[in-house]
């Protein structure tokens, strides 16, 4: 029997997967947009963003929009590769269903 591929634990978390799926479709997005789209809390989202940053899957940039500080995130090439690998692993696990 062929060995089942491993799923990247950093991506496999539901909120982290949702974040990466949102970021894959945009060039960049700020914290509030990600929070609103995922329906997450500030604390939970902040913690998950930190894990994704530490893994090198997203890059953070702090700047000012007028007088207000804005934290924006974008997906790194490593993040795109990891998400693509995750999708491949998912497809492999699910067989011909997808």
């Amino acid at each position: 029997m062929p060995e089942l591929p491993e799923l990247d634990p950093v991506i496999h978390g539901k909120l982290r997967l949702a974040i990466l799926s949102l970021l894959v479709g945009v060039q960049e997005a700020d914290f509030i947009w990600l929070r609103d789209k995922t329906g997450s809390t500030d604390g939970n989202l902040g913690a998950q963003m930190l894990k994704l940053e530490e893994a090198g899957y997203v890059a953070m940039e702090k700047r000012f929009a007028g007088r207000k500080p804005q934290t924006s995130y974008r997906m790194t090439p490593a993040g795109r590769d990891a998400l693509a690998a995750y999708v491949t692993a998912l497809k492999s696990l699910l067989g011909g269903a997808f």
Partner: protein
Amino acid sequence: MSDFDTDNGTTRDDLVQRIALMEAMIAEGRQYTGRNSWIFVVWGVVDLIAISWQYYFRHFGGRWAWPICLFVGVILTFGGKMLQRRGQGYSKNDECARVMSVWGMMGLALGIYVASGILTHFDWQYSYMAAILMMIGMAHAISAMILHWRMQGLAAAIYWAGGVAILAFNSGKATTAIWLFEMGIVMIVFGLYATRVEPNHSRATGVRA
């Protein structure tokens, strides 16, 4: 029922849920028109007021109906956008930039065209009014192609059909009726439809870690 378990206890159902979550989030990140579709509603209402004022209340400064209503429409659009940016998060992408460019330049072209028509008193001509519908239809069509959105493609077809109908009927009554339908009803209905699409989708996709 799950037919396998991975080492960490993830079942087939979990994996299928992950796929569904990814699809939902990718679609969510690509919702742009819904975010700005209130602008169609604003302009539909503005146009309806201007048309009604010009044709049915012309004794109350009907000559100023369009300049005043267009000015109010511009103020409401810019004011609304500023309020929207204050309350919502921010995302940026190529498709969004393209759609914004199309509508921004269409708005600019339309503004110049309408102002020229009013100043040169050519604004009563049927071909002048048909051209406005064709321009709006073109912006809808380009936007529909960028977003791969059939509903917006249908809106484009309705505007083009309206432009052709104005030229074909070539009468004041028909032009007023078509203009009221296209600039008022279609714009408001499309705006409300597009506004409904995004919130319904957002409510269905709350995510926890």
